[in-house]
């Protein structure tokens, strides 16, 4: 390549590197630093902020244990349900002629902002049966209306009197309600990605299995799922990262109250409502640590892709 100096590539990279350095790299280091300082980032306090998170001394104002547990719930339940639903929908939609329309309908929620989605679901979950769709349906079917977003009881209580009325935190009605709205938004994403992966499975393999006498169920579990597993992993990791970073949805629907706080909303509360930058930074670091394993998986996947490139 004529005329290219050794520094040319770096010149081209410069704007990106500068922006990333200022907005991503420096802040990570700075936040790490602040997590060891006091609330106004003036004096060194060692691990006090992390102790705060572990000890949870002020559960009424900022319940760190609740936030951490809720994050675990989001990580597991949200991801599992979304991936499963997405997979089922991808398989089903692939078998009808109006596949594109079906996929669009499920996919629309991805286009709207989380804030608008929160408004939609606040409206759906409204306690007043004349306004809230869910409660209207429940009362039609003979149940009692429930304050879906405020109820911290066990998940089965709106529907039946069986079982305990309170379950251990975070297994509560309002968490499920919030996760449901998250599922509503993200299933479209899972479905689209898995559908693309599904198209990559050659028809001959499926036909051969059918000829051999396998029924649809077996085909699903023994052939489709194993072949799709890399794609499933990709979808799952994206969803896990989304679950960890979930701010808008929870903040606008409940503001983190009624024990629905997640680490992301608690971070905002601590840093900007209560004004404690130290604990806020510590919470952000916790988020980062949680996300780190995913980062490593992604990096390894990229390296694999690089080698095969």
């Amino acid at each position, binding site marked *: 390549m004529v005329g290219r100096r050794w520094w040319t590539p770096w010149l081209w990279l410069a704007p*990106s590197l500068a922006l990333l350095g200022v907005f991503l790299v420096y802040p990570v280091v700075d936040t790490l630093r602040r997590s060891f300082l006091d609330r106004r980032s003036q004096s060194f306090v060692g691990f006090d902020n992390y102790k705060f998170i572990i000890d949870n001394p002020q559960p009424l104002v900022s319940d760190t244990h609740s936030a951490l547990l809720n994050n675990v719930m989001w990580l597991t339940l949200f991801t599992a349900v979304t991936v499963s639903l997405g997979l089922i929908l991808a398989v*089903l939609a692939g078998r009808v002629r109006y596949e594109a329309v079906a996929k669009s309908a499920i996919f*629309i929620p991805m286009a*709207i*902002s989380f*804030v*608008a989605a929160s408004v*939609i679901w606040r409206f759906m979950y409204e306690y007043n049966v004349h306004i809230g769709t869910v409660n209207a349906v429940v009362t039609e079917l003979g149940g009692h209306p429930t304050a879906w977003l405020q109820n911290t009881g066990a998940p089965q209580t709106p529907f039946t009197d069986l079982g305990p009325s309170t379950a251990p935190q975070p297994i509560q009605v309002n968490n499920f309600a919030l996760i449901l709205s998250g599922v509503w938004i993200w299933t479209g994403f899972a479905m689209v990605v898995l559908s693309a992966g599904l198209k990559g499975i050659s028809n001959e393999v499926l036909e051969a299995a059918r000829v051999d006498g396998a029924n649809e169920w077996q085909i699903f579990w023994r052939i489709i799922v194993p072949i799709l597993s890399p794609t499933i992993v990709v979808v799952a990791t994206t969803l896990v990262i989304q679950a960890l970073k979930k701010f808008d949805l929870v903040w606008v629907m409940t503001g983190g109250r009624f024990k629905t706080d997640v680490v992301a909303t608690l971070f905002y509360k601590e840093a900007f409502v209560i004004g404690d930058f130290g604990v806020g930074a510590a919470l952000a670091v916790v988020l980062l640590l949680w996300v780190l394993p995913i980062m490593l998986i992604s990096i390894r996947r*990229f390296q694999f892709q690089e080698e095969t490139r």
Partner: protein
Amino acid sequence: MAKRNPSTAAVAAAPRALRLTEGLKWIAARGPLHLSILALMVLWSVPTLALLVSSFRDPSAIASSGWWNVIKEPFDFTVQNYRSVLEKQGMARAFFNSLIITVPSTTLVILVAAWAAYAFAWMRFPARNLVFLLMVALLVVPLQMTLIPVLRLYSNLTVNAEVPILGGRIFGTSSFVGIWVAHTAYGLPFAVYLLRNFFGSLPRDLFESAYLDGASDLRVFFRIVLPLSMPAIAALAIFQFLWVWNDLLVALILLGDPSLAPMTLKINNLVSSFGTNYQVLTSAAFISMALPLVIFFALQRYFVQGLLAGAVKG
């Protein structure tokens, strides 16, 4: 020889009853499939439908009867909610703020990322792969890690002069320029990843012949790479556009001036002060959804492409 057309003969000779049972069998076999898909589609659309319908209803109607009752009173619609939210609550200004924030953030990220992507794809330099890997690793850094330091940085860098016409400061907090730069930076890892992959997949001979002809990097970039990469750029543009349009957290923290608030921020404030006045909330929410929905329907293919590549974006 008789084997050649037994099936056709059989079908031709089959009595109508047999064809009927076959039809029924087909329905029985495919029925549940179609039913479940249609049911899911309806179920998925219900929440959005509820919002849309309610935004056109009178406030007292919203409070007293479910939105599904609209079927009984078909033409009892009003655009009053939209009018009031656009004028009184400042949603019109917020709409333009959203536009002012989103468009430059999208174009800037494409430009900056394309530069870097080209270097990664077609230039050789030491540690190329390592730097690329690190850049992409930044994809998973949660926004929360960056916000306090960036906020402090902006407060210190605030230039208090007003920008004419657009409003807001020249730089720092409450500044459009500030938020453009921030969104560009946040969107870079994904953009670089996407574009680099696409650039790298362009045929090598194109570049070889261009270099042989003595073309400089800049020429190749603008004359060959960019035009050929329109699909990827379109996908990236849509993805970034929607991401910035729907963002709440960055605007919440870096944009303090209420007259600069994008729609997400406005709706957030409306929810906390108008909690149960759904006529305001539903219409405001729908206004903010309108443009993304239009984009979605018009450019679904690109959006999906962006999303497929975005399977790695955090």
